[in-house]
């Protein structure tokens, strides 16, 4: 392999790592990873300086291409990110992204809330047979479920119900349009 082909390969290998990483990656770690991955063939004596200049070169390439991406040095490591110029459109994107699909436990918890509302955590727990805490939190984050009040009972527990967004998301005009509980159950079990 020619040196330039090697150096192109090093650049894209670093690019792959920075793209896939979810935190800054130090130059040391990059050396370690690339050496391990090449394992024998390729540059055995890869050093920190080579990696550092490769990161700079990658950033140079992005800049030359007017790419939206940039290599940043943060917290003693390298990180891939978008240039500030594109903040606005990314914020727009976040607003319109469709909600991620609900997991089965969340969906089942939602079913219980939909049919039993207003209902309490204890009730959901006893119907589902497990702590609905995590699922409920997620449903509240997604604004599908909300606190509707308090039960007049020992401990005055919160009661939960579904939101308008729930109706919208499931294409229902109102709660009377929910399929019968048996149908829903079947839907979940089928």
């Amino acid at each position, binding site marked *: 392999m020619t040196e330039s082909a090697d150096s192109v*390969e090093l650049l894209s*290998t670093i690019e*792959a790592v920075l*793209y*896939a990483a979810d935190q800054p990656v130090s130059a040391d770690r990059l050396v370690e990873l690339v050496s391990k*991955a*090449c394992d024998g063939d390729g540059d055995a004596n890869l050093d920190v300086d080579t990696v550092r200049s490769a990161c700079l070169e990658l950033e140079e390439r992005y800049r030359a291409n007017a790419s939206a991406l940039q290599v940043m040095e943060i917290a003693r490591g390298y990180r891939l990110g978008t240039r500030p110029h594109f903040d606005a459109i990314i914020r727009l994107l976040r607003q319109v992204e469709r909600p991620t699909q609900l997991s089965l436990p969340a969906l089942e918890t939602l079913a219980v809330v939909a049919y039993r509302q207003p209902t309490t955590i204890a009730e959901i727990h006893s119907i589902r047979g497990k702590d609905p805490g995590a699922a409920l939190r997620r449903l509240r984050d997604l604004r599908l479920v909300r606190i509707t009040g308090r039960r007049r009972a020992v401990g005055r527990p919160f009661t939960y119900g579904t939101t308008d967004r729930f109706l919208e998301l499931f294409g229902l005009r109102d709660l009377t349009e929910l399929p019968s509980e048996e149908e829903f159950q079947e839907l979940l079990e089928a």
Partner: protein
Amino acid sequence: MRASDRRDDPIVADENSTPFLVHTESFDGPLDLLLHLVRRHEVAIEQVPLAQITAEYVETLELMAELELEPAAEFLEVAATLMRFKARALLPRPAVPEDPELAAQEEAVLLQQLVEHQVVRLAAQQLRHRENQAAAVWFRGEVSPAGIEATDSEIVEADLFTLVTAFRNVVAGLEEPAAFEVPREEFSVAECSAEIRAKLALGVPVPFLELFESGAPRGKLIATFLALLDLIRGSMVRAFQDGPLGTILVFSTDADDDVGTNETTA
């Protein structure tokens, strides 16, 4: 099925001595077995020697029952259908007169099902290929890839019946009565499971036959086989076959090394 009245078989899974059952629902169905038998004859589906296939089919079911693999009801339905075909072929005039058109139709339906099943298997192979390709692609900040392990396309995953047939050869070599006797000694499936995993721990694929200690009593062999099936069912171990009649290789999914992958780490 016989399996149900053999609950006190001394093959044990744990200290509680509960019988060890491998649930076949996560394995294959009767059409897989038929296809497996057809392929062994290396003929087109339309030219299947029905009488022979029927005999082999029933034999395999018996073997499964002996192994407490509890073939599902569907297996017995297909067996009954096959027996009817066979009876028809043997008797020029059936004792109970039946509509020949209906009989021919029934046979055509089964053959059609087999052909269709073959198409499904091809489609599944194609999906597997896709799955492998897609698994090597990473998205930003992804914690673990969406997909799936790369395996060489030349190698096919061994199905339940390939394993059962291979196992039959293991016990056929024993100079013991042909029937599967209830062994006197107690063999723990859990122990056999640990032994298999130890053999596979190096990450090197091990030929199926080498999992079975030569000269071991039949009960030990059966327990080893059941342990292997359970490991496969739990995705801890995988078995591959080098072509339809090729060697079966077993390897651990924990180990990094992979059968037949020639991927170079760039």
